[in-house]
């Protein structure tokens, strides 16, 4: 693929926010969301030449992001612990639009997601990103029915946890 750099550039523009959202949930001390984000991007760049188009790009990106995040959480990736941050990726706080309440609500959401087990966490982050059961099934490898049944229970658990906090 000659136009690989262009594809990579487009892919990052399209997907950087969704990747970062997942990284914010999975990052656990001493690994920061930025470190995890960098690792996901690196793995995407590494895997891109082998992308066969058997699944949609979105599904492919979500799979890599989830697998890398889970790998990091299970301490499978020892190299990630000594990641050097690259200057080519930098995060600047958006002071004027940053909503303090919104951040607090996100903190509650993160706390409630943390009460779920690993399997439920991977499903809920995809669901919150407004993916269909079919897409979630493709990413996780479970059946659509199974996702639907699981989602009913996860949703209840999440609502129970977050409603008193938000109210």
């Amino acid at each position: 693929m000659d136009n690989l750099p262009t594809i990579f550039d487009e892919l990052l523009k399209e997907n950087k926010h969704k990747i970062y959202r997942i990284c914010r949930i999975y990052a656990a001390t001493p690994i920061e969301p930025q470190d995890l984000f960098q690792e996901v991007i690196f793995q995407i760049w590494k895997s891109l030449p082998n992308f066969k188009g058997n699944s949609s790009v979105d599904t492919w990106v979500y799979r890599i992001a989830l697998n890398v995040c889970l790998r990091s959480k299970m301490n499978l990736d020892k190299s990630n612990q000594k990641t050097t941050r690259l200057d080519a990726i930098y995060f600047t706080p958006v002071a004027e639009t940053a909503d303090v309440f919104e951040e607090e609500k996100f903190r509650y959401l993160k706390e409630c997601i943390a009460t779920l087990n690993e399997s439920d966490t991977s499903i809920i982050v995809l669901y919150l990103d407004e993916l269909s059961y079919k897409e979630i099934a493709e990413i996780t490898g479970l059946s659509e029915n199974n996702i639907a049944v699981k989602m009913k229970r996860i949703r209840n658990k999440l609502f129970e946890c977050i409603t008193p906090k938000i109210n």
Partner: protein
Amino acid sequence: MLEQELKNIWKNSSKAAQINIETDRLTQDFDTKMTAIQKNIRKRDVREISASVFGILIFSFFAYEIPFPITKFSCFLSVLWFVYVIYRFRKSNQQNTSEKLSASLTKQLAHKKQLLQQQVKLLDSAAYWYAAPSFITNFIFIIGLGNPEDYNWKNLLTENLLPLTITAKIGVLIGLAFFYLFGVWINKRAAKKDVQPILKNIEDIQQQLNKPN
């Protein structure tokens, strides 16, 4: 209502910071990172293989130099064993570097589990593929050492290195037995402390995923 609110909170969570990526510079950095990773893999391979290559050279020299037939035979066995160790390391390293990060979560977990199970098996069976064969060849080597004068053999350097008396032979064999037992213990400990907990973690997630609800 709450559901949509949660989705909005979620979607807005990535807007807390502006993510800037300089793609050209990033791909250059990734190229450098890849080169560094490959260099480290090569270094590790050389480190692991060089010990075996050194063993092959030493025992080939012994096989050529030492006149005692049983010891000569054990030297050939040792060379074969070192070749097998190189093969085993290379195979294990190739398996460990294969990743399927673009596979579905269930497939990726199954793949990782398989790799870890192989790793546990390799570490747990060190007594059979590492300690026992090398101890047996060392044992034959030492038992086969005879009287140099019977063969009219003179090599001061080698003669001084070899345990030629009964006491020296027993001493060396006991030392070797402890050395290999320690090696087996280290491998078993690594399997139990480093690999088994991760394997258990993966199995837990697989169980959660396989539960009907």
